[in-house]
């Protein structure tokens, strides 16, 4: 029924598409908003579909850990080797001050960085940089999540809203968050709010787009089923559309978190007072080279921790996706 259009529909959603019962495969809508295109890869797995399994995995916890360890051990060893090689190369390059087009002359070595890090973590100042950056990320990301998911649900579900709001979003979307820095400083009364705003901008679009995509790729029969069961429009939104779009929303959150960090660090470096981005840049200005690397590593670890937290949250909120994903 190509180009089919119905006249007398009471329903907002598309007609059921016949025999197909597999939900559409989820594809993350990645956006490259970050300066330098450093978008984190989407990390949330979407809709694993185990084949007709009828019993949840019955193995004991201990046995499962054992098996997982045995399966994971070669991987762990290789992982340690990989990181060891990286640090080894770094050590050699800096101790011998290699110069072959790139120059390791002024780059601090791992031992130097490690001692400096130990020193820094004893210092209260450094901790407050970290806390401030985390606060900015959490604020910006929280606002982006609330707005992005709400708008995404509305835009995804109502055609009129889509026509009204989407063009404006499409115009703003390609502007990288960093490009907002000057305007942001003018817009907001304090530097602090403008940095949070930059973080928000970074996270907002991936979250919005993935939410819209999630709503639209939801199986329309679920909405019909809910309406037959007496769901009001509000209940439909909160208990069906939101839940159905959840896997995609989490993809958006993971991507958004990555972009938020990129945006935050850049904003802190450019306009900043305090924060790990500022700390790293300042270390360069003050010729405290070891601190640059400490800052970089801390940024990496914080980014990783935030993505991990989102993945964990996803697993807690979507037990139907993981609980039975891996059979023995």
């Amino acid at each position: 029924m190509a180009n089919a259009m119905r006249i007398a529909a009471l329903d907002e959603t598309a007609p059921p598409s016949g025999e197909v019962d597999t939900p559409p495969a989820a594809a993350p809508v990645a956006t490259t908003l970050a300066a330098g295109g450093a978008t984190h890869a989407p990390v949330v797995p979407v809709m694993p579909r185990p084949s007709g399994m009828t019993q949840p995995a019955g193995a004991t916890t201990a046995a499962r850990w054992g098996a997982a360890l045995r399966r994971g051990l070669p991987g762990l060893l290789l992982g340690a080797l990989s990181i060891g090689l990286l640090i080894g190369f770094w050590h050699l390059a800096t101790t011998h001050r290699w110069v072959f087009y790139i120059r390791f002359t002024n780059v601090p070595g791992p031992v130097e960085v490690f001692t400096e890090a130990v020193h820094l973590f004893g210092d209260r100042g450094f901790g407050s940089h970290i806390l401030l950056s985390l606060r900015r990320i959490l604020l910006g990301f929280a606002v982006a999540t609330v707005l992005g998911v709400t708008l995404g649900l509305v835009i995804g579900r109502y055609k009129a809203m889509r026509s009204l709001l989407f063009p404006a979003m499409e115009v703003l979307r390609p502007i990288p968050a960093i490009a907002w820095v000057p305007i942001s400083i003018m817009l907001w009364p304090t530097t602090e709010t403008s940095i949070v705003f930059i973080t928000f901008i970074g996270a907002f679009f991936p979250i919005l787009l993935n939410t819209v995509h999630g709503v639209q790729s939801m199986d329309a029969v679920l909405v019909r089923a809910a309406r037959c069961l007496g769901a009001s429009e509000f209940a439909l939104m909160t208990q069906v559309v939101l839940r159905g779009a959840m896997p995609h929303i989490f993809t958006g959150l993971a991507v958004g978190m990555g972009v938020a960090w990129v945006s935050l660090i850049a904003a802190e470096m450019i306009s900043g007072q305090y924060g790990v981005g500022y700390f790293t840049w300042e270390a360069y200005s003050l010729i405290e080279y070891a601190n640059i690397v400490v800052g970089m590593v801390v940024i990496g670890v914080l980014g990783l921790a935030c993505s991990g937290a989102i993945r964990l949250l996803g697993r807690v909120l979507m037990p139907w996706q993981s609980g039975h994903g891996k059979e023995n």
Partner: protein
Amino acid sequence: MTTPPATAAGHIDIRDVSVRFVQNGRPFDAVSSVSLDVKPGEFVSIVGPSGCGKSTLLNIVAGFLRADAGRVTVDGQGISGPGADRGVVFQQYSLFPWLTVRQNVEFGLKMKGVGRMLREARARTLLGLAGLLSFENHYPDQLSGGMKQRVGIVRALATSPQVMLMDEPFGALDAQTRVVMQEILTNMWQQLKLSVLFITHDIEEAIFLSDKVYVMTARPGRIKAEIPIPLPRPRTPDMLSSPAFLSLHRQLRALIREESLAAMGGELKEGGLAGHDWHMGEQSVGAVL
């Protein structure tokens, strides 16, 4: 508007209903002055070639579509949209993947504002009837197709509708599962005294389940025949080979075959056999079948 009799509810009345759709810019009648009724407690099937408007008709009763002409009532009330007074079972699996089996069954009751304890009790009773109690905490992805469809039926029954609308609910199941599902369905139907409007393209299934079978014509869909099924209840699988069953089967098969040929002939004509005469088309189709 007639007032429904107090004891027997669940009367579906479809009067002179027509539906037009637009396809490729051209309007056409998908359903043309169809009248049929399902009396309280009756099991009625509609059979007909694919594309004849069976789902369209059911979607009108369910409240997803509005008829362009005619009148549809359930117990004298017009239909203004979908609602829990009419249970619907879809051909596609339509369980909410994020809810467990029991939570799926409770969904309609939750929408009604029924308290947690009552909801849980009712869901467990119904799941027990359908032999699914031990799966109450499973997610739909962990169930087989037949189980999913059984949960779908139980979920539709949870709000105690007087009317069940089923659109080829067993279409995606294998033959053995189908037979079992048919028996489970007739059992539940007899215990709960519902009216059922059931769509299928399987003649045997229609006869086995129904009190009455309507045959529809190919596009535009009209009622071609109304066949009462006087077989005794309860029905058992060995009836499938009884003379009465076989004669009904023959009768229905002949009616449907005519319409399928008409439907395919029509498509062949549209599909570029314009130069050939009509009988050529029909004969070649007949030879293939």
